[in-house]
């Protein structure tokens, strides 16, 4: 990657990685939110075909592979950026004594890691979407992953706002 630094500054490089990480996270958030809505409140037969009905009427199983790939890729980008965060961002936030912000970010790191470990069983449950015995586990695991994703997105957003533009 060093050759890139002949053309762009170090700050620009890390900012690009951070923006890509955030954009992929938006895609993951959208996919998981649609999927969670489809299992929590599937559309009733004969419901008016409005925005809400369309929002929750997606075929959840079609999202499973994309969610797994996106979670993994977002995680890899996050793990990469994390090295920069550790000594260019976190230390400044510590100096400002914003401990709750740091704690919220630590919790994000833990929850997304646990979510990563759950991806194989999540994928398997959705692969067997016609197996009624898996319905409950599939539904609640999807909701748990969606909640983790929303929390991670918001915590990351807050830290980004605290630090400001440019890593």
């Amino acid at each position, binding site marked *: 990657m060093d050759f890139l630094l002949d053309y762009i500054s170090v700050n620009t490089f890390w900012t690009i990685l951070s923006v890509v990480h955030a954009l992929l996270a938006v895609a993951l958030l959208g996919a998981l939110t649609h999927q969670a809505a489809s299992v929590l409140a599937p559309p009733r037969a004969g419901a008016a075909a409005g925005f809400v009905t369309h929002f929750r009427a997606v075929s959840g199983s079609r999202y499973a592979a994309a969610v797994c790939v996106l979670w993994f890729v977002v995680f890899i980008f996050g*793990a990469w950026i*994390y*090295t*920069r965060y*550790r*000594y260019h961002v*976190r*230390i400044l936030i510590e100096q400002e*004594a914003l*401990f*709750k912000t*740091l*704690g*919220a970010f*630590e*919790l994000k*790191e*833990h*929850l997304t*890691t*646990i*979510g*990563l*470990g*759950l*991806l*194989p*069983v*999540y*994928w*398997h*449950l959705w*692969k*067997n979407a016609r*197996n009624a*015995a*898996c319905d*409950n*586990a599939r539904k*609640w*695991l999807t*909701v*748990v992953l969606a909640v*983790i994703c929303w929390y991670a997105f918001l915590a990351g957003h807050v830290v980004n706002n605290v630090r400001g533009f440019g890593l």
Partner: protein
Amino acid sequence: MSAATGTAMASRFGTFALVFGICFGVLYVVCDMAALPMFTYHPATERLDLGFTPPRRDEGPAMYWYGWIANSALGASVLGLLAAALPEKIRGKLPLALAWITPVVLLPVLIYSLKFYWRWE
């Protein structure tokens, strides 16, 4: 087979995936709270040390997160493979609900483990 388990999950991969997911989360929390990384990474110097190493003087902070993930992944893989090797009769009895109950139960433990940060100053 109970209603809470599925024939599909009794497959070897299904069992591996379920046990891996549960054990990965539990082991990760144990590694975090007991400070048990497989290795320590020093980002300022790009140095790797085996096991837990405190930050080195004038070399910036040390990172343990990657080492916790490596340990958890290794442990969960071994346990998942062992579970997948069990007879089908036993594999079919694993409650699927543990897949989502485990992270929910681990959440308060994680929040407690971060108590250092929840202070009003």
